[in-house]
């Protein structure tokens, strides 16, 4: 049932909630300096709390990291983090938008909002990864990624600090891979290198 996948991966979207900051601090530093896809990250966070995470990540990763700004162009190999309190969306011209639309599933930023807009833009050149969290956010967005031909990855629920979010995804669709934290960076790296054209086993 896997959708056909061809060409390179242009972007990776990552969503997480409770417990995901620690995990991101482990996974993102293991991406190589020449990682090609843009990385768009949505963590459930209140207003004015994301800058700290940006600084932590910037210290540890090879890739440039910043809080997403409204109308900013998405850069390859750049980690753009949704600012707390705002939705982050991808525009068709590959720029970012912020919005203050009401929270979705009690969350702003919402993972569904990011994933769905990214799926519409990147279609089959997108990879999504949903991490630990105590909510159903991200499941619908992952489904949209799948429907547009992108690849859906999810954290293995027993390895998650809170399994609710990965489980909600698994209840909705069969992902392309269910991953242990250790497997995440290597797989993203492989998918990110433009030579990969087929779904890894």
């Amino acid at each position, binding site marked *: 049932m896997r959708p056909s996948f061809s060409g390179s991966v242009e972007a990776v979207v990552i969503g997480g909630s409770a417990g995901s900051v620690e995990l991101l601090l482990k996974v993102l530093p293991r991406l190589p300096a020449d990682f090609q896809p843009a990385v768009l990250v949505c963590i459930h966070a209140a207003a004015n709390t994301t800058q700290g995470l940006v600084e932590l990540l910037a210290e540890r990763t090879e890739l440039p990291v910043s809080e997403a*700004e*409204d*109308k900013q162009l998405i850069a390859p190999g750049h980690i753009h983090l949704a600012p707390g309190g705002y939705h982050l969306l991808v*525009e*068709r011209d590959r720029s970012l938008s*912020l*919005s203050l639309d009401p929270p979705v599933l009690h969350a702003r930023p919402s993972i569904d909002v990011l994933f769905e*807009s990214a799926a519409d*833009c990147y279609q089959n050149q997108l990879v999504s990864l949903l991490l630990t969290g105590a909510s159903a956010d991200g499941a619908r967005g992952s489904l949209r990624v799948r429907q547009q031909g992108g690849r859906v990855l999810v954290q293995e629920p027993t390895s998650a600090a809170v399994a609710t979010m990965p489980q909600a995804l698994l209840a909705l669709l069969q992902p392309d891979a269910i991953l242990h934290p250790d497997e995440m960076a290597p797989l993203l790296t492989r998918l990110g290198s433009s030579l990969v054209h087929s779904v890894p086993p």
Partner: protein
Amino acid sequence: MTDPVIEGIELELLLQALQQRYGYDFRQYARASLLRRLRALAESSGKLRLSELIPLVLHEPAFLDQLINGISVSVTEPFRDPRTLRAIMDKAVPWLGSHPFLKIWIAGCSTGEEIYSLAILLEEAGLLARTQIYATDINTESMRKAKTGVYNLEAVKNAEDNYRLAGGRKQLSDYYVAQYRRAKFAARLFERVVVSQHNLATDAVFGAMQLILCRNVLIYFNRELQERAVDLFAESLVHRGYLALGLRESLRTLPTGLRFEEVDGASKLFRLR
């Protein structure tokens, strides 16, 4: 689920119908979030596709309000983003106070909480009596609510901290009466306010202002429309006038932003060069 390319065509046609039928022009709004809101509206109207909204736009005048409400995000609160209000009080008020008469424009005032917030701070600074506030929006339902000055009591009570962070010197409760679960702001705060409809996408310059607040509105526009609006602000300000934007809005990506200097970057207070 509709193919994004086809849905894009439907969106174009819907926005064009709305523009030609009523003059409301949303064609230069930031697409991704506009699309989300319109999908939600279609869904709640029992429609499968955006194009099915077109007949409603053309033939059902009663649908217009619903559509405008669906498209425009009216969420606001009293003393929102207090650091910007604080920067206005600290950095702009000395200059504002040097004028015998003040004109202030609040563009995108929504349901009016921002009007009362500013009026309170201006009263405490001793400026309200010689100020005229022009408050504008495109959403007539929001504008009606703004004129009543009646809000959810809980929401107003929750603003007490932000009132203080904005530089407020009294109790917020000095400015409203609580009735049941509502708060009604003192009528005197509204004496110097005129609310009118003005569309930043289509309407023209708005007289010589000393200060313009347009917060959390530009974020819904694409770059071209942001450029138009900021140009409009530059033309509507007197020499050295001030402009306040939302905390995540920026002039940096806009050519016309060069007409302004940063007064307080993090607080998004700018000044005409």
